[in-house]
């Protein structure tokens, strides 16, 4: 189990000073956890390694800035998540929109590409979605982040929310309906 230690503080100091070799220490200490986390968002181990190694390559050019050792895990999680999302987009483009992605029979996943609203700028769609999501309850958001964002598995989400499989699916269905209605309202407002 990785925990925040005095070693993390020293590591962050070295990273802040731009000591490139501290990246090797960071990889030794957290690489396994980062790979396991990346694996949630991409199809296989090789893809997870692509994501994590590319992140380290970017940190070599621009050292990561983490102020507080207590927030290191949160920083790594967020960094790996964004790197995985970028990787998926690139992979989708390179493979002619047939990316290597995790497929979950309960979820439509990130792997089908449907171009909608092509006449509406992407930023506008993202903004509408963010505003609609902000109006949902914490539980609804967690369900949707599981279903669409692959952040959690169905089982993890059921445990987190303390609901049965049947209740998970029922609540997810309602959450999707609520989000669809809110999105329609946001669209009308625009």
């Amino acid at each position, binding site marked *: 189990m990785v925990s925040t230690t005095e070693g993390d503080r020293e590591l962050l100091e070295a990273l802040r000073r731009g000591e490139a070799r501290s990246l090797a220490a960071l990889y030794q200490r957290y690489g*396994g956890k980062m790979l396991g986390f990346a694996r949630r968002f991409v199809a296989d181990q090789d893809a997870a390694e692509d994501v994590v190694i590319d992140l380290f390559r970017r940190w070599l050019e621009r050292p990561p800035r983490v102020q507080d050792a207590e927030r290191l895990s949160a920083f790594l999680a967020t960094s790996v998540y964004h790197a995985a999302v970028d990787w998926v987009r690139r992979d989708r483009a390179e493979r002619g929109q047939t990316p290597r992605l995790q497929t979950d029979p309960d979820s439509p996943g990130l792997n089908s590409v449907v171009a*909608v609203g092509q006449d509406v700028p*992407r930023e506008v769609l993202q903004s509408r979605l963010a505003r609609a999501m902000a109006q949902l309850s914490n539980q609804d958001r967690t369900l949707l982040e599981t279903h669409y964002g692959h952040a959690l598995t169905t089982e993890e989400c059921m445990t987190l929310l303390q609901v049965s499989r049947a209740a998970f699916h029922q609540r997810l269905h309602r959450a999707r309906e609520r989000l669809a209605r809110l999105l329609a309202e946001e669209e009308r407002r625009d």
Partner: protein
Amino acid sequence: MIDRLDALIRSVGLPVRPETLAAAWSLSEEEPGSRRLTILVTLRARPGMDEELKRATVEFVEATRRLEGAIGSTWHRSAGDPLTFVLVERFAHRGAFERHMAADYFRRFQVVQAPLLAAPAEAIFLERPGA
């Protein structure tokens, strides 16, 4: 309406909140150690020598890819400094890396790159314990 929602999210993605990512992080299993080895090599070209260094680097990367035990070899030009290149070399195990260093193409690259570099190449080894 749900179909349209699904299509929209597939198109633009659904952002995940930091707190959900934190929960997912804490639930994620560490990948077991591996014999794999990744090396990040930084090459800084002398001004005016970057295109020549790029050509030599591309040749080197392509030769590395043909080595048995090499998982991947890529080169990247720094977005912030066009004179800086980063090589990402991945090997299945130390043995493959040692064969890489003993290969003719490796020695040839050492000779060719020397007059093109503004500073000695820097290498960082990414390995995980338990390998």
